[in-house]
């Protein structure tokens, strides 16, 4: 059931991507995301596609596992694509009733869909190959300069790590509560909208109660171990760039320059 949700989950295999420094992956993800927006040409998207396929292949994460993570985004995708198709002014192709389909609309909708899908795949590739702890470390180090302007970088990174860590726990908890209520004859699948919304109460109330309980427990446990924020803390495994990271940065740079250049192409 809910076990199928893969957002933010780590996929434990060994691969060249898993082995990279998390900062490299963070930078790579940003470069990839920006590159999707600087290019407007077909060739640019083709290059991005090849890059993505290449990355997925060497990450050893099954492609099916990644595409499964796309399911929740599907609704947003359908809505934004149909808005683009029907509401973009331009050369009229055909019309279904009041809905006008234009050539420009189709084009923007297509690009939009590709961008959205690649955005999700690109960023989930990062979370699939990086543990939440590594990811937080990377964020904390990369954004460390913001400390100078009194942004609590460590605290924000910590909150993010905890949030990521809690996703699978809360999913499991929801699954358990749902099943417990189903065992008591609850029905989540039939009835009209109001009945279905009402059927959620027996899930949401226990879920909130347990989320607060877990949060309080965690806060107590952190305090019992004298957690006091980031100041003066050292790391057991400090982040260090290796040769493969340097190579990865070189590849990223080449990729990014090419993508910018394709932005000037007319195709």
């Amino acid at each position, binding site marked *: 059931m809910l*076990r199928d949700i893969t957002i933010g989950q780590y*996929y*434990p*295999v060994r691969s060249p991507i898993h082995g990279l420094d998390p900062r490299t992956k963070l930078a790579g993800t940003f470069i990839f995301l920006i590159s999707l927006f600087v290019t407007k040409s077909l060739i640019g998207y083709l290059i991005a596609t090849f890059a993505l396929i290449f990355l997925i292949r060497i990450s050893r994460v*099954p492609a*099916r*596992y990644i595409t499964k993570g796309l399911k929740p985004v599907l609704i947003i995708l359908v809505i934004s694509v149909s808005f683009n198709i029907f509401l973009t002014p331009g050369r009229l192709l055909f019309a279904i009733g009041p809905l006008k389909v234009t050539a420009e609309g189709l084009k923007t909708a297509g690009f939009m869909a590709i961008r959205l899908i690649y955005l999700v795949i690109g960023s989930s590739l990062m979370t699939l190959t990086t543990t939440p702890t590594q990811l937080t470390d990377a964020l904390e180090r990369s954004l460390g300069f913001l400390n100078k302007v009194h942004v609590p970088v460590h605290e924000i990174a910590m909150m993010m790590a905890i949030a990521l860590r809690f996703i699978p726990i809360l999913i499991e908890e929801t699954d*358990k*509560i749902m*099943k*417990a*209520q*189903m*065992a*008591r*004859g*609850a*029905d989540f699948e039939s009835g009209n909208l109001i009945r279905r919304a009402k059927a959620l*109460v*027996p899930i949401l*109330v*226990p879920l909130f*109660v*347990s989320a607060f309980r877990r949060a309080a427990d965690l806060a107590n446990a952190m305090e019992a171990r004298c957690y006091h924020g980031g100041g003066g803390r050292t790391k057991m495994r400090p982040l260090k760039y290796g040769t493969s990271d340097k190579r990865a940065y070189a590849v990223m740079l080449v990729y990014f320059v090419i993508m910018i250049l394709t932005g000037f192409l007319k195709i």
Partner: protein
Amino acid sequence: MSIRAEHLTHLYSPGTAFESYALKDISFEIADGSFVAVIGHTGSGKSTLIQHLNGLYRPTSGTVYYNGEDIFAEGYDLKALRTKIGLVFQYPEYQLFEEDVITDVMFGPKNMGLSDDEARARAKKALMQVGIGESLYKRSPFDLSGGQKRRVAIAGVLAMDPEVLILDEPTAGLDPRGREETLAMLEELHSERKITVILVSHSMDDVAECADMLMVLKDAELKFFDRPKEVFRHVEELESYGLAVPEITYLAHDLIKAGLDIDPTVSTVSEAKAELLKLLKW
């Protein structure tokens, strides 16, 4: 009339790095009115197994028959089945959600389509059976003590008047007195209501006293399904599964080693007492 599992196999996350067997080719038959204990180490598949019995999980292969009918067959009414096979989850107090105790217990019966009055009558009967007094009916379930919450949650399943009652570690996290009270309550339900009870546990001492059949799971496989006394003969195997025989059985074995002639399958304190008295020729 029975629950019969045939070659039940369940595979988690097939085709990914998380793939693992939760159940491997498990077959058994539980007769009506029996008291079965399912025992096994953490992660041995106990909880997964019982969730197949009321159709919350679908097996990868194999099936379950209830009273001769395949519960995973097309068109089988699983919702009706779940009212006949009551399942109390581990830490059931976390499923409470209503404003007061009585309304929460009425949730199950109301889902069965009973009227308010009928549901209330059933809830009252169930609450009485678990030892929750009328003074608590209007209290918020979140204000009760841990043991009380758990009993209210068990009443929530009992109120549906199931033919089979399955409980997943009902004594987990309770103090010794709460543990004893819960087990005594189950024995009473079993003998009074004549319902089948399936109890999941990892404490041999808990189950030796009340169960008449014992199911031992290890790494998704069914290792033993026999009367407790027969199972307790296999001390070394049980220990290699990370399980133990009841404390009193260990004591009996030590006494035999010391030269006393008593039955090695002793598994409860009262049996041990009888054996020792026999030895003393009382």
